[in-house]
């Protein structure tokens, strides 16, 4: 139980990675695969964020009233990295969906098992 509460974010992150990869592996529908990739991304981002987490720490933002010390703030680097990663993930997602639209135009299906015009 202590382990669970200590590592809950990591467990969540790895769980999301697992689920995301599993979706990509077993699902045949492009949209579901894209969702799987996003779940995977989310897992990775969660891991990144939680790796910079400081127990009892606050957001690394000074505000006029409060007198938070640097030692009580969480590491800002993973947050910056995740911000970038999220934007990148969103970009890929948008592109993937637009490609999905076009793919459907051509194949009338999104079942990847049937979309095998390119092989061997």
């Amino acid at each position, binding site marked *: 139980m202590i382990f669970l509460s200590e590592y809950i974010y990591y467990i969540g992150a790895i769980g999301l990675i697992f689920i995301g990869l599993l979706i990509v592996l077993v699902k045949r529908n492009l949209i579901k695969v894209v969702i799987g990739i996003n779940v995977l991304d989310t897992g990775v981002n969660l891991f990144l964020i939680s790796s910079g987490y400081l127990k009892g720490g*606050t*957001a690394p*933002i000074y*505000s006029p*009233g*409060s007198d938070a010390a640097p030692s009580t703030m969480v590491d800002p680097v993973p947050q910056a990295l995740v911000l970038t990663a999220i934007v990148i993930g969103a970009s890929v997602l948008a592109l993937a969906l637009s490609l999905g639209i076009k793919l459907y135009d051509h194949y009338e299906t999104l079942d990847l098992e049937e979309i095998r015009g390119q092989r061997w």
Partner: protein
Amino acid sequence: MNIVTISFLSIICLGLFLSFIRMLRGPTPPDRAVAVDTMTTMIVATLVLIGFVLERYVYLDVALVYSLISFVGLVALARFLEKGF
């Protein structure tokens, strides 16, 4: 963080939980969408409440952004559902 705020948060969580059940059960897509709509509103309130608990003003901005994004998202979802499913 005292007993009052803890009870506030748990009550909201109960509401969230009930909505979440509705979202899972459906049965129709609009049912799920409505459940999500309810949840987003609750989450905005929760965010403000958390800001209150942690005494961090910045959570208000987060709440505002969240309500805005969820509004746009739900309108988009509604427009999508309109066409049938």
